[in-house]
């Protein structure tokens, strides 16, 4: 009955997070086998309950527990899958007591920014990874995602259920579910650094949207797939960023059209190219080690 802890304390005082839990935190929904990952944040009785339910092979019980958790702590941070101690952390370069240089900032909710900092602000090239797996890779100007960047949008594809007559009826409520998750994500920005609420508006609502995956079995029972499959990603290119390009006032970038500082969004990319890029990214992840392993 040895349960793997979500983290291992070392002699130096720091903790090494279980990579399984890291993976679980990336996903929106938690699998029952990784139940020990969320015990770090929950109060003691909930921890015990979770451990009990996860040790026995009872996914039904676990889902009931999750439901209970959802209705009891909807507004607090217990509903989220938190890190080791539910705290923000920064690892990287400092200057005069501020984040300056290259560094990684991880919020308590698991979102993280890896990239360059200046005077305590996200400035320059960086990547902001959201909880759901989306990430923005590009330029930041004084804490705002501004400039040349690509928003990688991980979403779900719909699996065809040809023999299911109630397909549309079942998928209909989940459309709103997805919309609600998007809304909650927006609210999340206002917690801490909010790099995506630029003065000209929140732009990521323009991201094209697809319904939640629905699966049906041979008994014509349909359900929404909880764990998101990262199958396709669409590139959303945001082109502005006069400051980033270092143009003088009055000058205009050759590729820039229209009003200055206006954000122009264009969706591009074929499925083939997207799959190829994704494979390349995975390859890079496999071959390289994280730079912050130096700290461990």
């Amino acid at each position, binding site marked *: 009955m040895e349960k793997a802890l979500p983290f291992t304390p070392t002699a130096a*005082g*720091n903790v090494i997070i279980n990579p399984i839990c890291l993976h679980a935190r990336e996903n929106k929904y938690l699998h029952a086998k990784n139940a020990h990952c969320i015990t770090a944040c929950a109060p003691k009785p909930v921890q015990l309950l979770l451990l009990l339910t996860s040790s026995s092979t009872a996914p039904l019980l676990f889902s009931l527990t999750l439901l209970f958790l959802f209705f009891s702590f909807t507004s607090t*941070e217990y509903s989220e899958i938190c890190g080791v*101690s*539910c*705290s*923000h*952390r*920064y*690892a*990287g*370069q*400092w*200057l*005069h*007591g*501020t984040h300056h240089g290259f560094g990684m900032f991880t919020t*308590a909710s698991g979102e993280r920014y890896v990239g360059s900092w200046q005077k305590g602000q996200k400035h320059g090239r960086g990547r902001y990874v959201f909880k759901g797996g989306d990430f923005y890779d590009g330029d930041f100007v004084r804490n705002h995602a501004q400039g040349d960047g690509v928003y990688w949008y991980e979403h779900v594809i719909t699996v065809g259920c040809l023999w299911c007559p109630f397909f549309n009826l079942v998928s209909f409520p989940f459309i709103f579910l997805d919309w609600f998750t998007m809304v909650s994500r927006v609210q999340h920005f206002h*917690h*801490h650094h909010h790099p995506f609420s630029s003065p000209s508006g929140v732009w990521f609502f323009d991201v094209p949207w697809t319904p939640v995956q629905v699966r049906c079995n041979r008994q014509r029972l349909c359900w929404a797939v909880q764990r998101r499959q990262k199958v396709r990603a669409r590139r959303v290119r945001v082109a502005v960023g006069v400051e980033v390009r270092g143009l003088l006032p009055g000058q205009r970038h050759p590729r820039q059209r229209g009003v200055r500082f206006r954000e122009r969004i264009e969706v591009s990319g074929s499925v083939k190219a997207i799959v190829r890029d994704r494979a390349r990214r995975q390859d890079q992840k496999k071959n390289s080690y994280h730079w912050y392993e130096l*700290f461990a």
Partner: protein
Amino acid sequence: MSFATLTGYLRIALLLSYVAVTQGEFEHNHKHGRGIYTWKTGNKYRGNFEYDALCGFGEMIYNAMNHR
């Protein structure tokens, strides 16, 4: 290496409603070099100092309550 330099030194600053623990290298009564610094609010810093300022490579763990 001056006379005031000590390694592995533990220092506890006690003021009114302010407790901070420093553990690390000092030089001329300044934090200088690698060390650990803990604020009373719960923030914890482990890494490099240069004359009392956080400078160089370091890792900070923020208290979540401060930011919510």
